[in-house]
C-alpha cells in the first residue's frame, strides 16, 4: 500500500534531498510495478520499466512545477511515457503476446507463478479485452486508485473525456466479467 508523502517533498526532491528520493521510491515503486504488469508488461519488463521510470522521473524533476499532491500523477505520467517508448522500440509486443510471455516468465519463480495465475484470472482476461484507452483508465482508477483529475493529468486529456472513457470502460468490463463469471 502507498505511504503518505511528507509535506514539502516536491521542493526537497527538486533540491536533490536523498531522504525525499527514498520516500518517493518507497511509496511508488510498488504501484508503478503493478500498473505496468496490469498494462501488459511481463514481470522482468515491469521491473526494468519501473526502474527506468524513477530514472526519468528524477532526471526531469527540475522541470516539475507542481505541488506535493501532484507528484503521484507526475510519477504515473512518467511511467506511461516510459512504457510507451518501450513498446515503440518493440512494436511486436502486443498485449496478447505480453500475456503469453508473462505466463512463460511465471514459471521461473513462485511469485511469477502467482502472477501468472493472476493474469489468467477472469478480471485480467476481461481487462485485456478492453480497448487501449479503456484499459488505461480502468487500471489507473480501480487498481491504483487515482482520481479522475489525476487520470486526466496522466493521460493528458480533459477530465470530461476521462469520465466518458471511464463510463464506457466500466460498461465493457462489466459485460466481459458477466460473460466469464456471475457477479454478485
Amino acid at each position, binding site marked *: 500500500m502507498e505511504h503518505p508523502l511528507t509535506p514539502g517533498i516536491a521542493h526537497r526532491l527538486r533540491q536533490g534531498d*536523498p531522504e525525499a528520493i527514498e520516500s518517493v521510491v518507497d511509496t511508488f515503486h510498488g504501484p508503478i510495478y*503493478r500498473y505496468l504488469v496490469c498494462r501488459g508488461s511481463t514481470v522482468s519488463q515491469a521491473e526494468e520499466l519501473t*526502474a527506468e521510470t524513477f530514472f526519468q522521473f528524477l532526471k526531469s524533476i527540475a522541470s516539475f512545477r507542481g505541488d506535493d499532491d501532484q507528484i503521484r500523477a507526475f510519477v504515473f505520467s512518467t511511467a506511461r511515457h516510459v512504457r510507451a517508448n518501450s513498446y515503440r522500440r518493440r512494436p511486436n509486443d502486443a498485449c496478447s503476446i505480453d500475456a503469453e510471455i508473462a505466463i512463460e516468465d511465471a514459471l521461473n519463480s513462485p511469485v511469477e507463478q502467482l502472477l501468472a495465475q*493472476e493474469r489468467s484470472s477472469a478480471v485480467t482476461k476481461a481487462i485485456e479485452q478492453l480497448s487501449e484507452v479503456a484499459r488505461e483508465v480502468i487500471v489507473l482508477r480501480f487498481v*491504483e*486508485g487515482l*482520481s479522475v483529475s489525476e487520470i486526466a493529468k496522466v493521460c493528458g486529456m480533459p477530465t470530461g473525456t476521462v469520465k466518458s472513457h471511464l463510463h464506457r470502460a466500466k460498461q465493457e468490463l*462489466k459485460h466481459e466479467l458477466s460473460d466469464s463469471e456471475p*457477479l454478485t
Partner: protein
Amino acid sequence: MNQDNMHSDDDAPIRDACRNLREMEIPSQLKSKCLTAAQNGLASAGLTQSLPLEATSSQVSKLPVAIAASLLVGVGLGWILRGNAQPSVREDLAQIKPKSVFMTPRPTTNATSIVEYQERSSEESFFTKETYLCGVGRIQSKSKYQISREQQ
C-alpha cells in the same frame, strides 16, 4: 489510495474483481533497483549538490601543484644535464694554447740560460666551462687557470 468518487454501488463488482491485482506481490529487490536508478537520474540531471564546489576547489588546487611540478622537473633536468655534461665538455676546445699567448719570454729568477729556461717551460692555460640548459639558459659557468710544468 485516493478513494474519492470510487465507492459507488455500480463500481463494487469491478472493485472486488480488481482486489487481487491491488494486492499483487512486489519483487523484493525492486526497491533497491529503483533507488539506484533514481540516484543515477538525479546525477545525470546535475542535481548532486556537492558537485560544483568540488569541481571549483579541485581546479584551484591544481594550479600551484602544476607550477611546483614544472619547477621540480626543470631543476631535475638541470641537475641531470649538469652531471652528464661534465664528462662531455671538451676542455681542450676552450684551452688557449700556451705557446701562442704565454710563450713570451719571461725572465725567471732561477734561469741561467735559455736552455735552462726551456727546460723549465710551463704550460699555462685558461679556460671557461659553461653549461646551458635548453629553454632555461646558462645554468653553470666555471673558469680555470691552469699551470702545468713539464720536466724533461
